[in-house]
Every structure is written in structure tokens, then in C-alpha cells.
């Protein structure tokens, strides 16, 4: 920014006062147009490529959007992984221990995908409430649990603890 001022000031001192004032306005105008263009570009791009994260509980409470891509995360439910006859389609359930969401994915799963392990899937809900995943995310370390997944599990845990207290 400072160098921009530098140039403006230089042009100010270099030329006459009225002319220089015009020039300064011109510079400010150019700067404003540039800033507005960038902001418009960024907002437009952000609007169309933000993906929200929901826990299976959120999805079951219809908090997740219909017809728009989002991410769902939790643990892969034990014993829920089933392969389709084509060998590439995989069905599994994602759970936060309170609720579960059925997920379908066609393609090759990441290496660290396993039952009873954390998973994040990106995709859309179809009309039958099945999550059609376009991407299943990997992690790099078997000790690592994505913060969202951890939060979703903690949330469900807290909710259940509150339930037990009420009873």
C-alpha cells in the first residue's frame, strides 16, 4: 500500500496542483475499482465453493441442506461396510454414536478407510436419505482424528450424558 501512496505523492509533487488533484482522484478510483473487483471475485467464488460440515445427528434432524453438497463425518460403523457386485461401489454407515447416516460411494477408498475409524465424506443427500458421496477423505496418521469428527462424537456423547441424567 505504502508504495502506492509513494507513487501518488510523487505525481502530486511532480505536476501542478489542480492536475495533481485530478490524478489523485483517478488513482483512488482505479484502486477502488480494483478492490471492488477483487472482493466480488472472492465473494462469488466463496459462495459457490464452501462446503458445510454436519454430524449424522444434524443430518437426521434435517439440518443438512437438500440438493447441495456438504460433508458428513463420524466413525464408520462396525460391520456396516458392504461392497456392491461391481466391486467398486461401497455402502457403509457413518455414525456419531447417536445417529447414523447411510453412505454410498463408487470408486477407490483411501488406504486408512476402515470400520470403527474416523471418516469424512463429501456429497449430497438423495431422495431416500442416502448420502451419495463423491469423495471420501483420507487422513495421514492413524492417531489423527479430524477435529470436526471429534467434535461430532463429543457432541453426541454430551447429548447422551444429558439424556441419562434426565432419566
Amino acid at each position, binding site marked *: 500500500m505504502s508504495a502506492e501512496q*509513494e*507513487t501518488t505523492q*510523487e505525481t502530486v509533487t511532480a505536476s501542478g496542483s489542480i492536475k495533481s488533484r485530478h490524478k489523485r482522484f483517478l488513482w483512488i478510483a482505479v484502486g477502488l475499482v480494483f478492490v471492488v473487483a477483487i472482493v466480488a471475485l472472492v465473494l462469488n467464488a*466463496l459462495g459457490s*465453493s464452501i*462446503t458445510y460440515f454436519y454430524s449424522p445427528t444434524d443430518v437426521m434432524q434435517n439440518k443438512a441442506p437438500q440438493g447441495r453438497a456438504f460433508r458428513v463425518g463420524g466413525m464408520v460403523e462396525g460391520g456396516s461396510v458392504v461392497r456392491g457386485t461391481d*466391486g467398486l461401489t461401497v455402502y457403509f454407515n457413518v455414525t456419531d454414536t447417536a445417529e447414523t447416516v447411510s453412505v454410498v460411494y463408487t*470408486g477407490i477408498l483411501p*488406504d486408512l478407510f476402515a470400520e470403527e475409524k474416523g471418516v469424512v465424506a463429501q456429497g449430497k443427500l438423495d431422495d431416500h436419505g442416502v448420502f451419495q458421496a463423491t469423495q471420501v477423505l483420507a487422513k495421514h496418521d492413524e492417531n489423527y482424528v479430524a477435529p470436526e469428527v471429534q*467434535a461430532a462424537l463429543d457432541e453426541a456423547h454430551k447429548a447422551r450424558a444429558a439424556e441419562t441424567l434426565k432419566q
Partner: protein
Amino acid sequence: MIPEIGQFALILALLLLAVQGTLPLVGASKGISAWMALSRRTAQGAFFFLALAFGCLVYSFIVNDFSVLNVANNSNTKLPLIYRISASWGSHEGSILVWVFMLGLWSCAVSIFSKHLPEEMVARVLGVMGLVSVGLLLFLLLTSNPFDRIFPVPAEGRDLNPLLQDPGMILHPPMLYMGYVGFSVAFAFAIAALLGGRLDATWARWSRPWTTLAWCFLTVGILIGSWWAYYELGWGGWWFWDPVENASLMPWLVGTALIHSLAVTEKRGTFKVWTVLLAICTFSLSLLGTFLVRSGVLTSVHAFATDPKRGMFILTFLAVVIGGSLALFAFRAPKVGTAGTFKILSRESALFANNVLLIVACGTVLLGTLYPLFLDALNLGKISVGPPYFEAVFVPLMVPMIFLMGVSAVTRWKEATLPDLWTRLRWAAVVTLIVAIVLPFILGRTSPKSVALLGLGFGMAFWIITSALAGFFDRAKYVEGSFGAKLTRQPRSFWGMFVAHIGVAVFIIGVTAVKGFEAERDVRMAPGDTVSVGGYTFRFEGTANRDGPNYHATRGTFELSKDGKTIRKLYPEKRMYFAHGMPMTEAAIDSGVFGDRYVSLGEPINDDKQSWSVRVYHKPFVTWIWAGCILMTLGGLLAMFDRRYRVSTRRDTGKPSLPSSDSVKLENA
């Protein structure tokens, strides 16, 4: 015993660095030369102890000393020697030690190669680097001690994360860190200039080679990381806009702006304040990169299990460094003043515009990377910002930048005229337009979208190449003699720029071709099945078992052929590492100048035919992406070894820089 020596060496280094970070700075402001003279000795002494500590850690890894927690967590007796060594920087603790060690290395290098600098300057530069080192060394000792012991001593280590057991990962972190840490030199020079009030062309000439070298390391570091992700993660992509990748891209973008702004400061004596600000920003972003990766605040496919205490420490450190240096900047920068004038149409303004575009590009990447963190911190929901955002924002910013890159190479300093520019650039413009319009159709594309993509991409690449050539012929006019003389009489800094810019063109060609022509298929294959992609045929011949030193592997055999002619066999593997119980995919790649053929094994499918799910790719020109990065690095190195950085040092008197003889001619012409 050895780990204790390492620990002790770290403490001694801390004491020396504390001296290095205080007395020379005080000495420089009070004019006490004995205190200033301490800076070199302490920097070299601290480096000795840091090297000793690092040596102790490597030794502990080599001899499998599992009584050291860090070794027990990240190594294994079955781990091959080379990976035991690289495991020293594979873990969090080790990588921070390497960070500090490299900071010591850079400080030591400054202390050796600064004979011609005024004593005051050296004292300030090394003093600032000492302060930064103290902060990071405290971080290491207080939150991530690499020499912590464990009792009872485990009989066997937990092994290095299999993803890191790879040649690319031996080199990627050290190169990246050399880049990050190297920008501390530019930062220290900037702070020293602010403290001393001396900010002129000579100052720019001193800090320029250091900054360029750091930039070269960072470029190579990012390149190796990208290459590793490409073949090791098995997803076939070379850039994912992952937060951790962005963390390394941001200092690169601002660092690129910095080396160009330094060029203007050296040649023309302008942009001083701007250059100082960029130097501060570049290093701050390097620190931010370390913070983002090491604190675990990012949701990232790269993220490893981390400790929140560490995040707080780095965040505080970051606030102190960035806040402190910006405050100093605010107080002192106006005193530094401005000098030199130039018109709107001049090389200065073209470079400045590109600087702004690079900064804005960095800003948008920063926004996309941190936005999810802000929303999460404010409890407004958990989101992720995907590659479409970055692509949608980045490309529109890069198009004018590439255009100006070509223009600035032939524009005169101070003042240029449009007719003159047109004379210099008309051939470049015509060739570029023809290529951009015709090439997509020659390559057989007709859909408007892919014609636009290819036209834009190849157009930008050819614009860079042709305008760089125009720049060369422009300069060649002022050199008498044969064509050979014209080639050899250009200064190395010119060839540096030329090669680096051609590297950008090569990179763009690679990106465009991969984007436009890549083909990917996920298929189920039984032995004997074939699959075709991009004109190549892969025939699956079956799998066999193979044992590595610390893993079992299932190795698939694929025959790669084109038009019925066998090219070679490919052997992708699915490995199961003993210690982690973690499966790993090793892709097999047939790499060539015009593209890669890539195959990786998915999972075995439980049927009677022993089928596997298999992923195959054809990636045209993907190697050009990395070749482009290598050219950029070579360009940087060439520019760094320009004669004037050595010759001019003797006649250095603090006067504004003497432009090299050729550019004088160019300006006078």
C-alpha cells in the same frame, strides 16, 4: 548419554543466542564496537551447538535408542538406515529442531559471508536472527523437547509413519524449511535497516542474494512436496489447495514479490518502504505456515496428531514477531523516505502492479485457508473451502500478472512509451495470438470451454516465451559482435530472469495440458483384463506377494502397451506396514517427457477371479510442472551468482548501486 549431550548443547546454544540477540543490538545503537563484534562469534558458536544437538538426535535414531521418546515413537529396528536418519526430521520435535538448526546455519553463513558489510549492519542482522532463534529454541525446549526420555524403555519403536518412508520425504522438509528459515535473513536485513535508518540501493544489494537463495530452496521444497503428493498419495493430483500446501504457497507468492521489489530497490533506489514491508510479510507468512502446520488447528489431509499447548506458544510467538516488526515499521518507515520518480508507463510500475497482484493472490489464499478457522472459532458452523474457490480466484489474478510479466521484461525503467513498447513486443503478441487461437483446434478440441482453457493456458505460456526472447534480442542490439558474443556478454542476472520466466511458461504448459487432457479411470480388473486410457492399454497380469524390510506387500503386474506394442511392465504395490498395521498404496508410474502413465491398486475384491479395484491415469505433460519449478530455481541460482554481488563489494561505498554496464547501455539507448 548422547541424548543428554544433545539436550545440554541445546541449552548452551540458547545461552549463546540470548547473547547474540541482545548485546550486538545494544552495541549497534550505542556504538560499542566490542559488543557488536560479539555477533559473529556467538552466531558461529550457537551453530556449533545446534549442529551438535542435531547430530545427537540423528545418532539416537541411527542406534535405535528407544529410551528417547521421540525415537520410540518414530523409528523401528526394521526401518532402513536412510529412513532412520530422515525420521529425525519426520516427527514434530525433530522438525522444529531442524528449523532452529537451519536458522543457526543461515546465521552462521551470514557471519561468514558478510566481511564487506558495515559492522553495525552485521550486528543488527545477526541480533535479529538471534532473537528469532531464541523464540523457536524456547518453543523446542519447553513444548517439544526431542530428547525427552521414556521409562520403561520399549523393546521396539512404533516406526515412522509409512507415508514418510519415501525418498521425496527425505528431502521435502529440509528444503522447505531452508526456504522458510532463509527468509529470516531478508527479514533481519529489513529490521536492521529500520533500526539503523539505512535503507538504500546498497542495502538491497546485500540482502538480494540471500533472499533469492531462500526463494530457491522454498521453490524446490514445494516442488518435492507436490511431486510426493502426486505419486505417494495415489490420487494422481499435483496440487490440492490443501491448507498445508497453501501455507507453503503464501510465503512463496510474497517472496516472489519480494525478490522483484528488491530488484527495483537495487536498480532504481525506489520501492524501499514497500520492499521492507514485503520482507516482514514473507517471513511472517513463513512463521504462520509453521504455526498452521504444527499447531493442529487445520483440518487437513496432511494434519498429524498434535498438542494444543504448542499452538498457543507459536501463536504468541507469531503475534510478538509480526506485531513487533510491524510496529517498528510504522514508527521508522516514514523516516526512511522515498526516492526516485517514475511514470505510469515504466518498468517500475509494471513490476509494482505485479507485486500487488501477487500480494492479492496471497491474500485470497490466506482468506480461503483461514476462513474456516474463523467461522469455527466464532461458532458459525464448520466449513471447508474447496479447490473451486482457489481456482476461481487465482486464475483471474494470474492472467494479468502473466501479461505484465512479459511486458515488464522489455519495458524501460523510469519512462516508456506505448509505440516503443509495441515495436518491441509486436512479434511476441502476434505469435501468442496465433498459438492461442489455433493450437486448441490442432489438438482436436472443439468445445468452447476446453478451447478457452487451452487457448488461455498455451497463450500465456507462449506470451512469456516470446516476450522473454524479445527482451533478449532487445538487449542483444547493444552488444557488438557475433551472436555468440551477444549470448555470452549478457550478465548472469539477465539469464537468471530469462530461465526463471521460461520456467513459469513450462509450468503453465504442464498445468494446462494436465487439466485439458488428463484421463482417469477406476475399474475392477481380474487377471487378464485390460483397460485403456489416453490411447494406452494396461493389462492386469495378476498379483504376487513380496516382503520388504518392515512391510508385506502385494505386488500387481501390469503390462503397458500402445497400439499393440508392449512398452514396459508396471508394478504397483499395496503394502501393509508391520508396526502401524497401516496399508499404503505405492503407485507405479511410467514417466516420460510427454506424460505419465500411472496405475495404483485399490483393494482386493472378494470374488473367485481374484480381482482388484484399480485406478489408472494418463497425465500428459505432468512432468513439465516440475521441470518448470526446476527452471525457476535454476534461474534464481543464476541470478544469485551474478558477478556484481562479488565484484562490486570491493568498491562498495554506500552510493546508490551502479547498474551493470549492459543496463546502463540499455537505459541510454
